[in-house]
Every structure is written in structure tokens, then in C-alpha cells.
């Protein structure tokens, strides 16, 4: 059964801290691993990862995939209050099934 497990489920940090969000997965016929940020309504896309060991970076956010150990991490450096959100990890697998984890609620305090 396809599965995505995110940890921790919630996290509280102070502005300027660095955070690492974890995502482990089990999937038949892996195609991609996706990260999204959700604030109030629809999730917004952050990264798509398909190859192991290649870091993707966007400003203070970066992500990497390990297809051997079946996990991915999302790093946020110098956190700001605007980073407070739910961070969702998902994978696409067999038959184009798109499965999400339960999300990580990040709270960044001033």
C-alpha cells in the first residue's frame, strides 16, 4: 500500500532558526516526490524531486531526495513568520495515484 509519513507533525521555532522537515514514503513504481506549502486555502507548489542526491533550492528553502532510503527532507533556513504554514509531502506512484502525508504544521514565532 502506498504510504507517506511526515515528521514531526508539528513544530514551533523562533525567527532565524533553521528547520528540517522529514518525509518518508513507500510506493509502487515511484515517479516523483512533491513538497507543498499550505497557508489558508489551496496548497502551493514548492519542489518536485525525481532523482536522488540532487538538491533543489529556492531562496531559503531547499529539498533533497534519497531513493535508496525512501525519504526526503525540506530545509528552511533563517525562518520568518511568513513561513508559518502546513508543509505537505506527496508522491506519485502506480496508476498516477497521488498520495499525501498528514502534513507538518510549522509555527514561527517572532
Amino acid at each position: 500500500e502506498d504510504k507517506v509519513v511526515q515528521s514531526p507533525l508539528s513544530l514551533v521555532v523562533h525567527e532565524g532558526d533553521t528547520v528540517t522537515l522529514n518525509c518518508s514514503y513507500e510506493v509502487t513504481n515511484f515517479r516523483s516526490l512533491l513538497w507543498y506549502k499550505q497557508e489558508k486555502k489551496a496548497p502551493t507548489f514548492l519542489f518536485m524531486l525525481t532523482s536522488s542526491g540532487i538538491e533543489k533550492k529556492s531562496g531559503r528553502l531547499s529539498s533533497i531526495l534519497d531513493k535508496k532510503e525512501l525519504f526526503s527532507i525540506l530545509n528552511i533556513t533563517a525562518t520568518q513568520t511568513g513561513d508559518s504554514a502546513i508543509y505537505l509531502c506527496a508522491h506519485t506512484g502506480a496508476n498516477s495515484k497521488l498520495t499525501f502525508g498528514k502534513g507538518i504544521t510549522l509555527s514561527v514565532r517572532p
Partner: protein
Amino acid sequence: SQTIHQWPATLVQPVGSPLSLECTVEGTSNPNLYWYRQAAGRGLQLLFYSVGIGQISSEVPQNLSASRPQDRQFILSSKKLLLSDSGFYLCAWVDSSNTEAFFGQGTRLTVV
């Protein structure tokens, strides 16, 4: 460019009433379409997905059904709503040549 429309944005319905949420995609053909439900502050639970007209895969047995009458239209329905059907419903599509998902703006359903 591709866009996805989902409506209505909010809905308050009495217990036992029917439901129909509609999602349409523009600017692409043969998309993979998905319906998710999200409880407050939690992740996305996959309800149904479709890889083509008339093809529906159900992930969670429940009080809901889905249909895909046209290539770019995906409908979530219920004959009789329950209180437990309340939640935030999201439609998403994935282009057959790309594995990134794009979301509609969501429908917040409250069953009273």
C-alpha cells in the same frame, strides 16, 4: 496556460441533503483528476481519482461518489450528507506528461 476551477468556495448544507461539487480544467487534455478532503490543520485524504472519462478509483469507502462525464470535468456527489462530511474539499489535476499537481481553490463544506 492551464487553469483549474472549483466551485462553490463555501457551502452550508443540512444533514440529509444532496451534494454536488464541480471541478473543471482548462488548457490541457486527458488530465489525471483527484478529489481530496482535508480536516482542520491536517493532511489531504485522497477520496477519488480518475485517469480518464468514466474511470473512477475510490480510495475510501464512504458516503460520497465521483463521476467524470467529460475529459476535463470531475464531480463529487452525495445523495444524503452526514455531519461527518464537513470539511475542506480540494480538486487537483496532474498533466499526463508532468507529475506536479495543481489545485483548485477548495470548497469549505459545513453540514448542519
